[in-house]
């Protein structure tokens, strides 16, 4: 563990925490432009968080301590996940303690706590949201795992930095298996981050809502933590995608401090393109009925498994 590794590690955590709301703001901005609306500021999510931190929190009478604990747990899981995804550099000391499978486990822990918290107050919307979130999760989680497996089989390890390094150093070629999994991953990203076509982050009080339904009883600082965690989740998913499919530009051991400095603008560029792409997808597609969501995700799961089989058949 060198000093550079520690710097990379801390930089990644700090960047993720600070930049995640901006990424969300950027996606919202792009969406607004595409829909011919005047866009909110890039900093709007920060204003939102500041506003929430300045408000009193109201807890339902029968909210238990689990309800108060959950925002911090969900936030903690997202930060831990951000710490092991090689978004800027591959020299991450923490990633020895948690590989790709553990990453999926961390995300699952966050989901379980979020769902349990949603059930805690016992409102109709809360349990509905929890049920739907788990419905999306039980297909999205194995699909994500399969996506990671393809990358893991190509680079013969489940450690994320090693996967990213392995894919960077290989000759630039189109892997058919990765093409399949990239589509699967995009679908998982949309579903897991409550994006159209599975959920719509912009609406409340719609009978089809999933993520927002779970947060209805939260307010003040608790809501702020949950919103921040959601922004971090989107950021994390984007970075997982970069690490698996476009890992170029991440700083490696050999790059040294200049490599790390260079990695920052590269990441910003990737995020800008990915955010715009996400906005385009969201603008072009229509919201699915809730019961079409399992079909959507089953497609993602099968595409990922197909990618795995293609990898084994072609042996690339």
């Amino acid at each position: 563990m060198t000093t550079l590794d520690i710097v990379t590690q801390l930089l990644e955590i700090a960047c993720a925490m600070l930049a995640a709301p901006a990424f969300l703001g950027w996606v919202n901005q792009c969406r607004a432009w595409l829909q011919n609306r005047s866009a909110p500021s890039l900093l709007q999510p920060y204003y939102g968080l500041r506003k929430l931190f300045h408000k009193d929190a109201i807890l339902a009478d029968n909210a238990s301590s689990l309800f108060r604990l959950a925002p911090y747990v969900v936030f903690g899981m997202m930060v831990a996940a951000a710490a092991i995804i090689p978004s800027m550099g591959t020299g991450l000391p923490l990633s020895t303690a948690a590989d790709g499978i553990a990453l999926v486990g961390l995300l699952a822990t966050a989901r379980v706590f979020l769902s349990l918290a949603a059930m805690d107050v016992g409102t109709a919307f809360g349990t509905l949201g929890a049920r739907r979130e788990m419905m999306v999760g039980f297909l999205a989680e194995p699909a994500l795992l399969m996506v990671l497996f393809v990358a893991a089989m190509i680079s013969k390890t489940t450690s994320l930095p090693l996967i990213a390094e392995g894919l960077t150093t290989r000759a630039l070629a189109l892997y058919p298996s990765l093409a399949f999994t990239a589509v699967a991953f995009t679908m998982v990203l949309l579903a897991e981050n409550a994006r159209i076509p599975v959920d719509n982050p912009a609406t409340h009080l719609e009978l089809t809502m999933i993520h927002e339904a779970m947060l209805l009883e939260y307010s003040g600082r608790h809501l702020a933590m949950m919103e921040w965690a959601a922004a971090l989740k989107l950021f994390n998913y984007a970075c997982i995608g970069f690490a698996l499919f476009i890992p170029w530009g991440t700083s490696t051991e050999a790059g040294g401090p200049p490599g790390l400095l260079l990695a920052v603008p590269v990441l910003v560029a990737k995020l800008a393109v990915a955010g715009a792409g996400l906005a385009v997808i969201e603008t072009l597609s229509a919201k699915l009925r809730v019961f079409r969501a399992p079909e959507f995700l089953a497609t993602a799961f099968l595409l990922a498994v197909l990618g795995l089989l293609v990898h084994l058949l072609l042996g690339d």
Partner: protein
Amino acid sequence: MSFSYLNACLAVLLAWAAIGLAGMIRPRSLEFAGRTLFPLGALCGIALAVLAVASIATPVERAVLPIGLPGMPFHVRRDALASAFLALLGGASAGISIFSTGYFRKGEGALPGLLCLEYHVFLASMGLVLLADDAYAFMVAWETMALSSYFLVTTQHRIPEIRSAGFLYLLIAHVGAIAILLSFGVMQGGSWQFTFDAMRAAHLSSGWATVAFGLALFGFGAKAGLVPLHVWLPEAHPAAPSPVSALMSGVMLKTAVYGLLRVTFDLLSSLQWWWGLVALGLGLVSAFYGVIFAAVQTDMKRLLAWSSIENIGIVFTGVGLTIVFRGVGMGPLAALALVATLYHCLNHAFMKSVLFLGTGSVLHATGERNLGRLGGLIHRMPWVAWLTLVGVLAIAGLPPLNGFVSEWLLLQAFLFAGDVPQTFVNMLLPVGAAVVALCTALAGYVMVKFFGVIFLGQPREAALAQAHDAGVVERLGLAWLGLGCVGLGLFPVQVIDTLDLVARELLKVPAGRWGGAWWLLAPAAARHASYGPLALFGVTLIVVALAALGVRAVYRRRVHRGPAWDCGFVRLDARMQDTAEGFGQPIRHVFEPFFQMQRELPTPFDAAPRYRVTVGDRIWTLLYLPLGGTVRWVADLVARLQQGRIATYLLYSFVTLIVLLALVL
């Protein structure tokens, strides 16, 4: 006589039997049988676990006991495999016994003394199953285990459903036992020696070895609850008192896994790699079938029983994977898969016990097993709720608890299977990994439903407001098992270094390298993959604490309490929450073809509209009912011979005589 671990273990089993018999001194006294003898049983359990862990690295010990039939004494033997399962038995049963001390009440079915006898005989017989070294001792112990657990299941024998559940259990246990007996019969290989040593020495042809394996898979599968032999499990587990359910699900099912491992890797001198595919396939089917049925249950103990089927499926998947790797000569990967299997057995013993005992406390506090009449118990029973949450998170396979470790190991074994010589197996294994991943995710769904519906939300019945938390002793038992879940989750390297001894013994592989450091799990077989739960947990804990403290320091606002907002809806009541049926509805919808569903839908003109859905097991209607019908038909045919008139019977004798004469002459 010098000290031997084997003798010490036998002494513990004897002590259990003695404790059981002591219960009969004052069978009606709950104070004596329940409150005095059960803690002694727990101490024996701890002693057994300590002995087993200490003995696991020591050489094999054997002895011949002076009991049994003349000329057929009991042979016993303790090796690393037996030690590993003895540790499981001791460790899990200690927690369950502590809990039982506070659990059993007066007027619940059988007399306390009788319960104490059955319970401790059950424990002792499970121990003897693990130590037996000849078919005779094994079958005696196996049958004692089946019978004592049958009596425990039917503790409340005045209820007809419980009697029929017990009957089903007994029936399938015996069909399985016959298969095991036949398997031993094949394995003695014409030597007519029924000691396990003779079986190890016998060289069977590959055909006979396959027959022996098939019979063992059937017999032990019936005990373990492998689909399609699982039907007794969702009936027997809810019928039994909760500590007994915990013992059966947590420990007894594992004796079947032990039996299969013993037969496959120890008694049979050679194995075929494709046996593994059969076990793997059955395991995956069980895991999937179990978890989707768990998701639609409305009875909390039945839900857990189906979840046990899922976990047994995952264990058998691991066994199958081990056989495949062993069969094609990939030692390190076989060791990885075997360690994953054993680890999952150990994990399941702890986490499922926590959950079953948690339901026991809920049942005592509320008198309800139906999820639709529970809710909001985290306020009334905080201890039980938080300790159960540990089991819930563990069984959902979430880091840093123990369920995740075995899942991680199993997925690594699947992932690095790449070099199996048979190409189609190479293609099949990743699909298996996909099924395991799907089942784990579904287990998360099931557990959110289980915990959310019982402990969270608003109480669905007014009577729940009177629910009381479990007593101190019960909390202690739950905490013991919960700590087991946490410990097994945070210190995988230490556990695996121990389990590796079993792998070395069974698979004849050299010692594997499992850890990068004392806190870092890094199996050499899984290249470059590592998992350090302690570090991960530490970092997450620090982040959570910093976030909470940071917010507290910055945040200048107060926290109020108020009525739930619910989008401004003011007439919120408990009936608006999801029921257990409602929460399982997406699973019913997505996996509809697997369920046998009967829906009763209201019409718009019903005065009192009613919606009802019942979910049945297709295997029961498609396999068991026709089978039962056939048996009945054959029995009816045989019954026709029975005319009840003396003249007819004389005619039978006469005809028989004529036929025999014709044959002889």
